[in-house]
């Protein structure tokens, strides 16, 4: 047995870059496609994830496109149908609505409507999250895709899982929507993320994280809280305060994959705590939290000791002004208030 090499602390951005480089080295069929991703003198994608990759892989396998989202997704679908493994890039997840046909009608359905003869192993990376950019650059639209049979939906919140899940997504034979939160990349440092340390231990040696498996981020006996992305960190902050201030112990779960959802892990926790809260930055109505709540009600109703609660962005377009945005997205205070209500 070889001695494992020591871990390093990486940001999500760095971890994603490593995952992409490793997969491109491993498999010639992996290529990148998107806007502003490989331009010399450019910025390596909207959040710098691709910086340095053109130097190693050249410009054939890093396909810079026009501002044509339908082509980004459509080309990824066509190439994937022939067995290539595109990692497509949407600069902002808001732009996914430009290519809903390619994702929902084509990528998700080709396998089924071909009777299983065609697979579409593409990855579509898309940053979500409100960052004072307003209604068209601040959405978290992952729930739209959770509704689509044939897609997989992944949401990553830390560098370790981001790297392992992206590598799994590239190797998956299905279309995977891969959502990352803009404030969690770590490219802008701790200030913009509200003082969060956005680095995590990432092993030197290769590893994969399976799609469809949730992770318990904090164990606790009183309330099960399921959250993704930046909301997860707000939940963790709320959990620490509730433990100190009220003696309430939250069990915090990062589902990591929304489709397929790891209900096994979530229900096991719920059956112990008897209380379930779902927190996401996506808007409330029809959000993925509603699906988790509905399934919990169907499958675990008699384990519940209190109503299921959802905490989400309020049902308005995302405003730009910091004071307005803060009033819309789930805050640590809102999370604490709801969880206290459950205990009372």
């Amino acid at each position, binding site marked *: 047995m070889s001695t494992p090499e020591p871990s390093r602390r990486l940001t999500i951005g760095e971890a994603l870059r490593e995952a992409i480089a490793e997969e491109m080295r491993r498999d010639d069929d992996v290529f990148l496609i998107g806007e502003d991703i490989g331009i010399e003198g450019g910025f390596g994608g909207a959040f710098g994830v691709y910086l340095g990759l053109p130097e190693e892989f050249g410009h054939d*396998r890093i396909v810079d496109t026009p501002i044509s989202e339908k082509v980004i997704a459509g080309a990824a679908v066509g190439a994937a149908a022939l067995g290539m493994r595109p990692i497509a890039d949407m600069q902002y997840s808001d732009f996914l609505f430009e290519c809903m046909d390619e994702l929902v009608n084509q990528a998700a359905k080709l396998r089924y409507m071909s009777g299983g*003869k065609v697979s579409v192993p593409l990855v579509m990376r898309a940053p979500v999250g409100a960052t004072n950019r307003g209604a068209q650059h601040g959405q978290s639209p992952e729930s739209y895709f959770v509704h689509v049979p044939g897609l997989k939906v992944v949401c990553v919140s830390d560098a370790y899982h981001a790297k392992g899940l992206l590598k799994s997504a590239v190797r998956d034979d299905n279309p995977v929507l891969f959502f990352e939160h803009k404030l969690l990349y770590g490219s802008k440092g701790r200030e913009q993320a509200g003082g969060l340390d956005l680095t995590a231990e990432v092993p030197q040696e290769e590893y994969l994280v399976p799609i469809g498996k949730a992770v318990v981020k904090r164990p606790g006996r009183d309330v099960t809280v399921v959250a993704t992305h930046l909301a997860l960190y707000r939940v963790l902050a709320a959990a620490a305060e509730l433990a100190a201030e009220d003696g309430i112990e939250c069990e915090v779960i990062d589902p990591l994959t929304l489709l397929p959802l790891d209900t096994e892990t979530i229900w096991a926790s719920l059956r112990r705590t008897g209380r379930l809260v779902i927190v996401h930055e996506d808007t409330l109505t029809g959000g993925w939290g509603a699906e988790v709540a509905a399934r919990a009600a169907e499958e675990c109703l008699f384990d519940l000791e209190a109503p299921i609660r959802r905490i989400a962005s309020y049902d308005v377009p995302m405003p730009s002004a910091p004071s307005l945005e803060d009033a819309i997205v789930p805050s640590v205070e809102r999370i604490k208030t709801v969880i206290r209500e459950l205990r009372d």
Partner: protein
Amino acid sequence: MAAVAEQPDEGTLARLYRQMLLIRRFEETVYYLFLEGEIPGTLHQYQGQEAVAVGICDALRPTDWITSTHRPHGHALAKGVTPRAAMAELYGKSTGCCAGKGGSMHLGDPAVGMLPALAIVGAGNTVVTGLGLAFALRRSDQVAVCFFGEGASNEGAFHEGMNFAAVRRLPIVFVCENNLYGASTSFDTVSALVDVADRAAAYGIPGRVVDGMDVLAVREAGVEAVASARAGDGPTLLECKTYRFVGHSRSDARGYRADDEEASWKERDPIPRLRAVLAEPAAAAIEREVEAVIEDAVEFARASPDADPQEARTDVYA
């Protein structure tokens, strides 16, 4: 319209005639069976446009790929989906080319180089760029053809696909089948340009108007465009002027088209036009063979088991 192209050898003429007739008889038979209630759903039929699919696909290799539309029966047969597998798919049988999960609007089979047809207007115009990109990345000399209607030329997907294919010089031939109507909407009411081919200039690629009722003209244009794509010279837009002899779909009584317009296009029917240059015994032999093939396909479809409800929830994920 271009003059009738220089004639290829007799074997080629016979092959083209056979393929066009196969599609025509398949469609006529399917229409009858649909009216009889044997075939479920709806149909978007290809009668009248056979020269386009047959002329283009004759210029392709088996390893080349095509994308198709909601009107795919002709493309599927021309690219090599068997009449049995196509017919069984229309019947909703497990032996269909998509195991009954695709149906009329999604005929296709990767084994013959055809994606399941994409029935959203314009969808193929972006997806085909991925086929071309894959060929380019793999340094293969394969070519992809995108069949689409003139209606799709007003979709945003048309613009994005054409521009991207052009700027990357992808090995693609865009084949616009201009049958003059998008459902009931006449093209001259939705486009200030008469010829879709003129739009090629906006992308810096060649555009050509072709007589879509002359299989030899289509084939000649196809051979040239495919050779150019294969040689790395990038995409071509071929606009084949054609006409569907039937309604848009099965519920269409064609009240928006004048009888004399329909009659004038039927006079240019590509099938008798080609038959006129074939030797009588050869043509008659082909006709007998095609009848037998269609009869066999119907018998095969009728005898095949219905798609199994146990399979309704499979093939969603790989």
